[in-house]
């Protein structure tokens, strides 16, 4: 396994800058997640690490060695894509064995059998090795794709939204498995996603990427609790961060404040009417969520409730100052 360092990485496609002066330090054995909306430059970053794109500026290091000029095949990265690109005419066994049979590696057949079997067991697909790849379910196909990456024992794993084409239940299952696998093998994983649940549950550290720039790097807890900017605060959290009108706080806060944010679980909800009451719009027991509205502003509250509230019902909401996040006009956090 290896560490990855990116220094001043820049990549332009025609007029558009996909990645701008990117600095990243992924430690050996770390599960590192790049989180951002589509077009943020996540996939480009991954492809730069793999050597599938050449940077316009900047350098890539693996274990401290400059590999910027090294061919992709020699960087020893295993790529897992969103679309499990398996060979449809081959069996599961042959799909997993494929990278070992490449001319560059020349692993002998008994060793191949041993390693494929071992990988298949880790991924719980040992019973399906003889099947055609196309005879598998989506979840199983993605397991095979991950197996094909695992079997090579590469220096780093590069994963590009590997779970996003799976349905919710499978995604949950495979998410847990990926984490277990990474822990037990000590692999370095650079993982791209736009799904914040994958980010917080999988990552040792997260980099929030937007418009080709790193906005913040930190552990999931650091990023969630101490966002440096409004866009970072809005990137994590489900339900999303409430952004409240600054007029509601007038007089009591820093005059530079333009946006006030508060996490749904930090809003206090009480029954009752009053001069500053909110009307319930939606209430869900499953998501422990209440959405309430006042003068056109919707506020989301996360609370484990005994009873769902009825739409139209009045509630009082309070926003404890110690849990509020204050941002200036540029979106920078004021009370960090």
């Amino acid at each position, binding site marked *: 396994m290896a560490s990855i360092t990116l220094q001043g990485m820049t990549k332009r496609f025609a007029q558009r800058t996909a990645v701008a002066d990117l600095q990243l330090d992924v430690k050996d054995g770390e599960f590192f997640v790049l989180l951002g909306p589509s077009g943020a430059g996540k996939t480009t970053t991954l492809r730069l690490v793999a050597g599938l794109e050449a940077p316009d500026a900047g350098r890539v290091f693996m274990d401290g060695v400059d590999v910027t000029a090294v061919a992709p095949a020699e960087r020893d990265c295993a790529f897992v894509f969103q679309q499990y690109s398996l060979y449809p005419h081959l069996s599961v066994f042959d799909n997993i064995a494929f990278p070992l049979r490449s001319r560059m590696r020349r692993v002998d057949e008994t060793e191949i059998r041993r390693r494929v079997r071992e990988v298949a067991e880790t991924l719980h697909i040992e019973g399906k090795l003889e099947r055609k790849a196309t005879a598998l379910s989506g979840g199983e196909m993605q397991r095979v794709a991950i197996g094909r990456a695992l079997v090579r024992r590469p220096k780093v794993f590069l994963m590009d939204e590997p779970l996003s084409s799976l349905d919710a239940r499978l995604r949950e299952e495979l998410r*847990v498995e990926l984490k277990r696998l990474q822990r037990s093998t000590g692999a370095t994983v650079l993982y791209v996603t736009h*799904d*914040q*649940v994958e980010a*917080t*549950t999988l990552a040792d550290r997260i980099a929030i990427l937007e418009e080709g720039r790193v906005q913040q790097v930190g552990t*999931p*807890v650091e990023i*969630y609790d101490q966002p440096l900017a409004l866009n970072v605060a809005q990137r*994590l*959290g*489900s*339900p999303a961060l409430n952004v409240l009108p600054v007029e509601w706080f007038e007089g009591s806060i820093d005059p530079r404040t333009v946006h006030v944010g508060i*996490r*749904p*679980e930090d809003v206090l909800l009480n029954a009752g009417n009053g001069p500053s009451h909110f009307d319930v*719009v*939606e*209430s*869900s*027991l*499953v*998501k*422990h*969520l209440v*959405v309430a509205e006042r003068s056109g502003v*919707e506020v989301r509250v*996360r609370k*484990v409730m005994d*009873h*769902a509230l009825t*739409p*139209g019902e009045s509630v009082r909401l309070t926003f404890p100052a110690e849990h509020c996040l204050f941002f200036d006009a540029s979106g920078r956090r004021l009370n960090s």
Partner: protein
Amino acid sequence: MKLYCDPISTTSRPVLLFIAEHGIAAEIVHVDLMTGGHMDPAYLAVNPNGIVPFLVDGDLKLGESSAILKYLADKVGSRAYPTELKARAKVNEALDWLNTQLHEYYCLMAVYPHMGVRDNLEFPLRNEGLARAEIDRRVREVAEILRIEHLLGSRLGGLAGGDRQRVALGRAIVRQPKAFLMDEPLGTLDAEFREIMCLELRKLHDRLKTTTVFVTHDQNEAMALADHIVVMNNGQILQADDPQGIYDFPSCIFVAKFIGRPPMNLLELREPLSAGVTTVDLGGTWVEVPCTLAGSDRALLGVRPEHVRLGEPGGGLPAQVARVEYFGSHWIAELDTPAGVVKALVGKAVKPQEGDRVGISFDAQRVVMFDAASEQLLPSVTTSRHQASMSHG
């Protein structure tokens, strides 16, 4: 708003069609269909509250569906079921035929991609032969409700997913139907947008008060939108109740696992359960439960992750933290206990450490019991106090 929750979507389509044909308040009908030498039950059950579950056992097979369609056609009476269609017995064609019979109901949320936004909204009205002034009035009104006035002049192609879906919704509303029948209308949207549209649908419903039957396999949509939910699996109604009833007192193990994320914990008791007890032996620890009203040889204790509390070791059921997942607003801890694995929802303030030994207790009033053999909910003082908001045939 009424809502069907159905993991198998092939069974939900006929529900919509049946309602379209018969209106919301019809009678209770049971039909048995003889197909291929064996009896496949199909239930058409219409209760006084206006819930119309139409269930077919398993997937719709060719023979079954045409028999059902024939039945529906007979019920419609004067509208003859086209015989050439029967001869071809193509399910889709038959469904299309039924679709054309839908005058007063709107079934599918769809748009004509080659038309502009205004044309899409006007099209159903022009088909009805409405006067120009009336068409303009209704289109304006609907565009205002959905906040798409500024898009009326646009083509559909360039619209964002959510705006497109609003136009589709607009096409349904503009006809002022007696009911909205929606089959997974939010299924194609991404998670974030689904949530926003969900909220919008709920607001729209509160404003228009139009009866809506909504088919989904997404429990979040179901729990957030519905006044009533009918949970179906393999063509059977498992439970018909309001969201609170479904959540608190799932009628069976399937519903308990289907609704709620992570799902309800189900822990097997060591000893047979007797009626009239208020404590049970769970992996060697006595745990308080609502007074039971029935016994069972093999019983499961059901408790939701948010009703599990972590305390000091030595108190309650002994447990060890096996795994912790972080979700920002909370942690989900997976705990090993003598009674099996228990998942608990823990507030964000304190992180449970992997390997920690803790004692866990349950919010006793929220605990339910199931019979392991029949997989059905066992009655207790709390379940008997609850009145389902509706019944089903």
